[in-house]
């Protein structure tokens, strides 16, 4: 499975990793990953270190996650994105919606 999750020690942060291609095929798995906990975490981290491709459906999924997280820019952090993924996020100007590290 290309989606894996990890909860921080204090239970405040949910980290989701997306491996390889981040596209429509991971839609259900990603949604399950943050809905399975049955609660809203204080912070969400989407670790993109292993993500090699991202399409517009993936950008849509990010919007859904953001909404789930409460709609604030600080609530979802996108980390470790490779240059090609950074470019995609930059063209969409998603830095206005997410904290990109």
């Amino acid at each position: 499975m290309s989606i894996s999750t990890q909860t921080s020690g204090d239970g405040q942060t949910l980290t989701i990793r997306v491996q390889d291609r981040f596209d429509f095929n991971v839609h259900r798995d990603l949604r399950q990953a943050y809905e399975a906990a049955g609660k809203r975490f204080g912070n969400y981290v989407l670790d993109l270190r292993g993500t090699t491709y991202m399409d517009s459906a993936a950008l849509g999924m990010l919007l859904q996650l953001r909404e789930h997280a409460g709609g604030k820019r600080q609530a979802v952090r996108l980390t470790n994105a490779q240059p090609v993924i950074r470019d995609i996020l930059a063209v969409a100007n998603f830095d206005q919606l997410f904290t990109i590290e």
Partner: protein
Amino acid sequence: MPRTTPAVADTFTASNISRNFGDGLVALIVDDSEIDQYLVQRMLLDAGFTVEVASSAEDAIALASNCQPDLVCCDVRLPGADGYALCSAVRARYPDAYIPFLFITALSDERDLLKCFEVGADDVVVKPVTQTLLRAKLTAALRTRDMHQVLERQRDQLALFRTDVQRDMEIAKTIIDNLGSEKTLALPNVSYHLQPMDTLNGDLIIGGRSPGGAQCFLFGDFTGHGLPAAIGVQVVHGVFCAMVARGHAIECIATELNRKVRQLLPRDRFLSAALIEIYADSGTISVWNGGMPELLVCSKDGRIKKSFRSTKLPLGVLPADEFDATPTRRQLHEGDSLFCYSDGVIEALNSAGQMFGVERVKLALTAAGHDVVEALCADLERHSGATPQHDDVSMLHVRFEPDIMRARHDQHAPVDMSRAATHWHCCVALGHDALRSTDPIPVVGAVMDAIQGFGPRNDEIYMVVSALFSRALEQGLLGLDASLKCDQTGFASYYHQLEERLTGLTDGSIEIGFAHTPDHEGGVLEITVSERGRAQAASASLHDNSHADLEAVRDVCESLELSDGGRRAVARYRWYKG
């Protein structure tokens, strides 16, 4: 051969095999030995099968041709054609059905047994036959048959479903085609290419000409493909065309599209889009880019002199109160061209998995002497070869050729009026705060259309009103120096100041009036635009009545009179009946 129905049940029951697993099924038994025939028949009848019996392959073929058996048990050695031939014949007769075929044979040579499987048998039972083993093998064969049937049903359902979806897509495609987005691009200075990867395109290009004389374009890419995107295309097309036709500015169009897309589509769907507005007269180009690859401006000599990067979020992402509709403005010069492409162009893969890339696009742009879109399509085809397309591919190339773009109607061409020319007048006055939030041109245009409407002459009338209004607002009320707009840096600062001063405007108003008088030839429309602000605010260029915008007004009007230090302008526009 007579059909035999099951005899009285005997006492045999295998531990884990259902007693009547052959219920409702027809078994064909083929054996020239009457004893073997009888033994197998007994066992199958006990299992619930309806049994048909034949002593030769020829008889069996005749039986099987009339009625498809569910199972065949057959000896290899038969008088005449052998069991192998029968197996092949049954398989040939029912190529799509799964009919378990068991050989029951006394042969024990491995080559003979292998041949059974080669001709298509499912299993072999070596004589003497024990009831337990035969039942076990039959059960296994039927299990495979059941599985095959389930798969077949699912395959058929899937095929049916595919046909349904395909038909829905075709209908959606017809509707989209009938909208006529492509027709809006039939402009002499425009070339484009739309190549959907599927029936329906998630990319869209729409063109339009505003009544004020601007060419407007929407170049967009919906999230995903297929029906949801097609529904979005329909909505966007309607809003864009209507607003361009009414003369709305690009900011208003962007704002409305954002509102509409956000209102209608689910949260994870949006429209990456570039909105473009080009005025032939002034050369002003305004671009709003939310999520599209950079738009490139190329000069006549093949130099990329400017790019409009995406600086906004795509349409439909932000709520109305957070949406930023401010476009970027630049100046175009004759021979410049604008090129837009969707990410499907640069992400197109070749057989080695490499992307087409931006550099190849730029190379094609700067190589002179060819049609850019045509050349790029050829490059793309060479690059991709047989590699399947995985995204919609779109390009738009707009050449800035003011004379072609202007192509105004002949001033004296008669107007075919559907309504009688009448006496009427109207007046709209906007105060300083209303000017911040309302573009009055579409408003007065709608009033004019509703009362009279001048068909093909609307363009010119809109141009006159727009020019006089802009002058009253920018040079009059806001005191901006029109000469600033002459060069690239001044141009940017002009619009920056415009934004700033409009926000800070605390008094003043602008009045736009129409008065129409019919006569025997047609009629005269008097257009009055007057500005009431603090006199000292007005820029010196308000007095410059040779300004280019005014020249264009003079070109199409019978007369233009300026009074009150240039703050009041009255244009008389004459039209002729058809």
